């Protein structure tokens, strides 16, 4: 098995390995933070030194290290505003105040912020991936229950599941998100942030994240229900008959025979659903969570930098490609018996 895999993908593996080695070398060659700061002009150096011994901080230093490249921005406030920017790459430090250097510096800085580097899980790509993954997880679980309810012989249960699916597929996700985030606490008299006793901003983020996860999972459950239902119904009737003939009851048949076989057939559709949710997750900008979309929009607004959306798109694409690959592998793993 293993050796076959290596034989089949030998070219790709070698290519990936070469790229990895180059990246590692580049990352090792990358100048450090001190090296970047040591390139500043004498005036700026003076300001930095003065800042170190003064209680009135006038210098703002931003340092972003991104894999193989890094970026530092040093600016002063007050009279005589100064600003210097540097990019470090492959053992060299480049001025990044104008032209191509400025562009590269900006992109490094934006990407760094949109990935949520240097922040906790409630920021940037980390937030997007966490929200999407948890949504799909809960969505599939809920979807499985809904699918079982929908194909159940109990009329009421089946009708309820159909109504649920109709409702969540028939209304906009954004409004569902608003209902969970604003209406539900409004009616029941609580606030989402109260669920967490973190410092103020953290509690707000965590509360909003919880609300978003609930809204997304409820919504995704409706879509996953259809995925699971069609997968279950694609299983040969003979499997039910054989299980019954062997004395297995409905629950045993479902959990041991039918659902395990359905899983493989669900994976391509769940992978699709994952990508849909990944993109839908950008809706959390409406409840001020700091995901990739919100951060890019904020950068656009505060810095007037219309190019910020390009790295935003690339980040989304990379995440999509990565998880597409993962789902592909999972599908292969489940196909061993075919």
């Amino acid at each position, binding site marked *: 098995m293993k050796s076959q895999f290596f034989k089949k993908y030998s070219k790709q593996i070698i290519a990936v390995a070469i790229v990895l080695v180059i990246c590692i070398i580049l990352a090792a060659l990358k100048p450090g933070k001190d090296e970047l700061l040591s390139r500043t002009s004498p005036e700026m150096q003076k300001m930095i030194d003065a800042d170190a011994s003064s209680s009135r901080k006038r210098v703002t230093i931003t340092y972003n290290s991104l894999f193989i490249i890094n970026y530092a921005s040093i600016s002063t406030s007050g009279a005589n505003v100064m600003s210097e920017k540097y990019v470090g790459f492959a053992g060299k430090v480049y001025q990044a105040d104008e032209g191509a250097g400025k562009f590269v510096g900006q992109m490094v800085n934006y990407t760094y912020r949109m990935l949520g580097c240097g922040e906790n899980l409630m920021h940037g790509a980390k937030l997007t991936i966490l929200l999407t993954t948890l949504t799909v997880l809960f969505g599939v679980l809920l979807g499985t229950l809904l699918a079982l309810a929908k194909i159940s012989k109990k009329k009421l249960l089946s009708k309820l599941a159909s109504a649920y699916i109709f409702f969540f597929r028939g209304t906009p996700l954004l409004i569902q998100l608003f209902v969970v985030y604003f209406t539900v606490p409004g009616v029941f008299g609580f606030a989402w942030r109260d669920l967490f006793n973190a410092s103020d901003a953290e509690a707000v983020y965590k509360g909003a994240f919880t609300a978003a996860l609930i809204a997304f999972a409820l919504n995704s459950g409706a879509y996953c229900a259809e995925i699971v239902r069609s997968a279950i119904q694609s299983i*040969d009737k*003979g*499997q039910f*008959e*054989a299980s*019954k*003939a*062997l*004395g*297995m009851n409905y629950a*045993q048949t479902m959990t*041991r*025979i039918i659902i*395990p*076989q359905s899983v493989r057939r669900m994976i391509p559709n769940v992978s699709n659903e994952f990508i849909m949710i990944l993109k839908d997750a950008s809706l959390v900008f409406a409840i001020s969570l700091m995901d990739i979309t919100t951060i890019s929009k904020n950068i656009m607004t505060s810095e007037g930098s219309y190019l910020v959306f390009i790295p935003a798109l690339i980040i989304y694409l990379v995440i999509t490609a990565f998880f597409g690959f993962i789902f592909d592998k999972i599908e292969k793993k489940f196909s*061993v*018996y*075919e």
Partner: protein
Amino acid sequence: MSDTYEYILKTEHVSKRFGSLEVLKDISLSVKKGEVICIIGPSGAGKSTFLRSLNQLEKITSGKIFIRDELFLHREDDHTVDRLPKEKQQELLLEMGMVFQRFNLFPHKTVLQNVCEAPIVVKKEKKDVVEARARQLLERVGLSEKEGEYPSRLSGGQQQRVAIARALAMNPEIMLFDEPTSALDPELVGDVLKVMKELAETGMTMICVTHEMGFAREVADRVLFMADGIIAEEGTPEEIFTNPKAERTRNFLNAVLES
């Protein structure tokens, strides 16, 4: 369980209707322990439906089914008139193993797991006990080396022998075979029939729907010829194959044996 019953399986006036189509008409059959019964007849005669209604894969429209002389189910006009309590029914149903035309092995489980699944899940038997028994059964059907394979890697004949082992793992008293060789390539039929023959020799009660006239002739204690939802003729293999009384039986046998 006492052995004081007269018939291990008995049906009285069993009928089955799909909408307006009458598939089984008033079928009565009594089976003694250890009997091997082969049901032959043209397709569409209701053979499979009858077999499937014995272990409740089909619900009969009317009639009575007895297992070990106990009234298992009594239905009239698609309504249950009388039946054993559910748990008792379930217990008796476990005494019937079934082998399907299309094998219906569990594709996501290995051969050994296929055989072990039901005893572990349904009868809550210990895994090592079941596995030991499963290995014996696999040896009996000649598939010892295949226990780790997935069904998709086996030929049809091998799959069907696994299916037989799977049914036997539940230690049933009666085995139902629903055209077990009809989906097989001709050269694979023999292995399956051999296993069935050996099973018959152990004294297993068997009801086989089959198109294998040679097998019926050699192994059966009684042959039923079904046509148009009724048992048109019934007798020993000798009577049916050498001296059929009914016109329909003669026509059928001529058509089958000529080809």
